[in-house]
């Protein structure tokens, strides 16, 4: 046995898996997570961290592109698999692992890959394509419930910078545009510059919705000029990327770079199929536009929304984001026990223990206190359920107590939070707060898409 084989043997006990959940396939993801845990594998935090890409479900065109782009970013050795059913996950993982440790196959894969970092292919007419995959957006309307498509032409009050950035998406391919972009970002208030940019911006916007679906790749593009612009680099557009521009109207009065960063759809502990186009000042979200990416056309799913495993899964994801791995693991274990056992009421004591443990943690309470508070006024305006209230900490406890009552009685009637409400909740928060708030809301893309059809 040579060194390489020996390494492979040891490495096989800790494969890192990036899971992509297609809306409607949450049970498949749960099964996959259970199978991974029993093998000692772990969930990857980013494509760079992953050996294996597992798609749960059959994605629509938009989501497929995002997944392919993510696939290009896995460092390798790498393998990918698809599981369409919760009974199928173990087999899918094992087949992928076989591929992962197949020396010959990996060599071939590596030889076929392009040199240099993965860049998404640019979509030409993105918004029409978006309409093309009607499965994802049954009403044929790209972004759901948000008129932000035209934000490049918005009122101009401190938004100019966004226009520049709209062009971000067009990076790489068109160098000329890129350099225009950097002129625009030079800080001259020239309205023409902005005007130019907003044209490109509208193209770019479209690009973004495709190309940057995976959160990582956008980051490469966006950040192009960070730091360089300070030196007044004239036509610098490194890698063909226009420079990030200084932003107007930061809340702290700082001249921070304005970045466009998509959150999702391939992002751990993030609602399946949700893509938020965010505009960041530093690490503060100043603008967000939601979009949903769904499954293939004609797929109808039985949503597990509101069931005990669903509640526990949300609690687990929230705890993971809060950085409390042990409590998150406990929630995930109870979730899997509920799924595998017939007598779920017997798990009530376990849930009670977890609730006590989470409640007892003063550190968690202190860290999450007052975050993402939703008051009666907001609820009333948007016709939200009464259970959606309080701050992130209260909603976390709410998930767990919901799970408990669902185990003993019939499932509580919860309706998902519309995706379109998210921007109002997260604008003005920094990224960690955004992640926690989104995870604490009852977002369910598959339900939402089903609702649109009906």
């Amino acid at each position, binding site marked *: 046995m040579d060194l*390489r084989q020996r390494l*492979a*043997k*040891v*490495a096989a*006990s*800790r*494969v*890192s898996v990036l899971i992509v959940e297609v809306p409607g396939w949450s049970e498949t993801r749960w099964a996959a997570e259970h199978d991974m*845990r029993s093998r*000692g594998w772990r969930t990857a*935090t*980013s494509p*760079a*961290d992953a050996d294996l890409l597992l798609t749960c479900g059959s994605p629509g065109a938009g989501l497929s592109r995002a997944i392919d782009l993510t696939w290009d*970013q896995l*460092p*390798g*050795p790498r393998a990918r698999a698809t599981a369409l059913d919760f009974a199928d996950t173990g087999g899918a993982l094992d087949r992928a692992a076989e591929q992962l440790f197949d020396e010959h196959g990996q060599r071939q894969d*590596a030889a076929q890959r392009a040199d*240099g*970092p993965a*860049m998404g292919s640019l979509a030409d007419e993105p918004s029409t394509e978006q309409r093309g995959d009607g499965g994802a957006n049954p009403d044929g309307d790209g972004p759901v419930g948000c008129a932000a498509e035209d934000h490049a032409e918005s009122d101009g009050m401190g938004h100019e910078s966004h226009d520049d950035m709209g062009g971000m998406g067009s990076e790489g391919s068109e160098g000329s545009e890129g350099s225009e972009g950097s002129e625009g970002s030079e800080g001259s208030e020239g309205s023409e510059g902005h005007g130019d940019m907003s044209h490109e911006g509208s193209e770019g916007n479209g690009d973004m919705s495709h190309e940057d679906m995976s*959160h*990582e790749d*956008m*980051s*490469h593009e966006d*950040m*192009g000029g*960070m*730091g360089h612009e300070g030196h007044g680099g004239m036509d610098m557009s*490194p*890698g063909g990327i226009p420079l990030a521009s200084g932003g107007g109207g930061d809340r702290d009065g700082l001249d921070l770079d304005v970045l466009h*960063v998509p959150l999702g759809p391939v*992002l*751990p*502990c993030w609602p399946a199929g949700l893509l938020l186009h965010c505009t960041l000042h*530093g*690490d503060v979200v100043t603008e967000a536009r939601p979009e949903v990416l769904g499954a293939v056309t004609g797929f109808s799913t039985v949503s597990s929304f509101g069931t005990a495993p669903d509640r526990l899964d949300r609690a687990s994801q929230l*705890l993971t*984001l*809060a*950085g*409390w*791995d*042990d*409590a998150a*693991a*406990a929630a995930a*274990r109870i979730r899997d026990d509920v799924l595998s056992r017939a007598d779920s009421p017997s798990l009530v004591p376990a849930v009670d223990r977890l609730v006590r443990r989470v409640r007892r*943690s003063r*550190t*968690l309470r*202190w*860290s*999450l206190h007052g975050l993402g508070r939703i008051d009666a006024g907001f609820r009333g305006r948007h016709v939200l359920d009464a259970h959606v209230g309080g701050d992130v900490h209260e909603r976390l406890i709410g998930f767990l107590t919901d799970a408990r009552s669902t185990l003993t009685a019939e499932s509580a009637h919860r309706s998902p939070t519309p995706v379109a409400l998210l921007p109002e909740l997260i604008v003005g928060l920094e990224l*960690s*707060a955004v992640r*926690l708030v989104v995870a604490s809301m009852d977002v369910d893309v598959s339900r939402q898409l089903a609702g649109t059809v009906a």
Partner: protein
Amino acid sequence: MSNVEVVEASAGWVPLAAVVLLATATAAASLDGALAARAEGRPISQGLQMPWAETARLFRQRRRTTLAADVLLWRVGVAALLVMALMKVVVIPLGRWTIGDLSVGVVWFNAMDVVVWAAVWLAGWGPNSAHSLVGGYRFLSQALAYELPLMFALTAPAVGAGSLRVGDVVAAQQGLWFVVWMPVAFLVFMAAVVGFSVWGPLSTPAGVDLAGGVFAETSGVDRWLLLTGRWALLTAGAAFGVTLFWGGGAGPLLPPWLWVLVKTAVLLAALVVVRRGLPALRPARVIEVAWLVVLPLVLLQVLLISVVVVVRS
């Protein structure tokens, strides 16, 4: 134990120091893996192998670049964590021996710790990625929170011993370990160690919510260096804590060098165990409490010690 003079070991012992540091760090990572495995309901033996399995995995993996990355600075930042941990142990005496018996050893430790700022920032900035960059921002804000308290926490034992030489600080604890009369400084020091190691409750610069933050774009040996550097920094910090506050090699029966290792292991284990019960602290909260609560407290501690020292002399 009589006064043991710390002597400088020859340069030939440097590799041994590195091996001891890495072995201790590996043991700590194994313990962490075992506890994680227990929490997930997996066999504990599987968790104990975690550092090796992760190493094997990462050594098989390819490195990765991103578009328009600042590769040089990125790689420098990635490698610097481990290097800084090694530089820190230079001034930590292992019983009677030390690699560098600097007259300003305490300041040296602090200086190396400041280099960690640059290291983590570069690791976040280099890959040209928003998530990494935000991780870098977060680390700087965290560093602003812990650095001043850390400096004053380091001042306390130095004032107590009347010297910046690490050997003198150890010798000054012959009667009474510093942890007894400067507990606040000790606790603040340990919190700062956790902070500069980007670990546990202060690991948000590398948090899951940022897709790994400064780790987000690294793979293969780069990620291995970051992970190892993190554990090595934590280990070096714990060893320095033992030296400054827990009497270094002082103790009955066992030889001093072994006492240093035993105490370091116990302190590390305590950190790992405590960490499993804690969530990560959101960056905004950390800086708030650091400046409003911790800094005044540690200043009071230093004042108290200064008064005691003046009165005693």
